[in-house]
């Protein structure tokens, strides 16, 4: 199978690929390239790890219980007011 895209095109598509925003056809081309091209595979892996790190840390930040409670009270008061 001949490569449909080169490294430059793969780099341009990387962000959309990682966010799963490519069309199925473009995604297949990207996957095919990454499987064969080690530098592009590694750079994709680096970006992926960066995104996983961001998500993991962000998930540790939650709405404080006292705020949740205040919001609930606020909404109940508002509901009674009608």
């Amino acid at each position, binding site marked *: 199978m001949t490569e449909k895209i080169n490294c430059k095109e793969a780099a341009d598509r990387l962000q959309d690929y990682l966010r799963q925003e490519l069309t199925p056809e473009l995604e297949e081309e990207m996957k095919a390239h990454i499987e064969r091209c080690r530098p592009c595979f590694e750079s994709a892996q680096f970006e992926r790890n960066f995104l996983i790190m961001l998500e993991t840390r962000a998930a540790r930040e939650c709405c404080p219980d006292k705020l949740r409670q205040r*919001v609930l009270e*606020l909404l109940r008061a508002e509901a009674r007011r009608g």
Partner: protein
Amino acid sequence: MAEPSAAVRTFDQEALPHLDALYRVALRLTGDSTQAEDLVQDTMLKAYRSWHQYRPGTNAKGWLLTILRNTFINDYRRRKLEPVAMDLEAVEPHAIYRAVEVDDPEGTFFSKIVDEKVTEAIDALPPDFREVLVLSDIEGMRYAEIAETIGVPVGTVKSRLFRARRLLQTALYAHAVEMGYIKPRER
């Protein structure tokens, strides 16, 4: 106490699960936990009052975040000193991967950086970039949802996200070098 009405029940079911996300985005927009709490309360009250405009089963998170963002812009942003405008589209920071591909191609240095430094670096991003990065990479919204929420074309969302990631990686890399988590790149 009387049973909550049907409207209250659907609001509870559809809106309350997004409190964590609302709080996180509020924190990143305001950069201050007290203001973030006020912003979340104001947002939830506004959302409750206009709940009849929400179509059940559609994107509740996006709807709530739109209200949060509008509330922030109208009532909160002016409390904060806006940074001097610069030509952000011209910013083209280099890819950090190129600096670490030999020593740390998997970017393990990121995991050594403490949570506070990561949030500090996010908070230091220019507001327009920070907003897109938070909605995309932290809250997992799609380009189209972000575009609708903040009222810009999808292309703008993509370019801001690209630059936001580069800027954030550059800042985190500089911190990692400073802390000795990674060797500086040989020039």
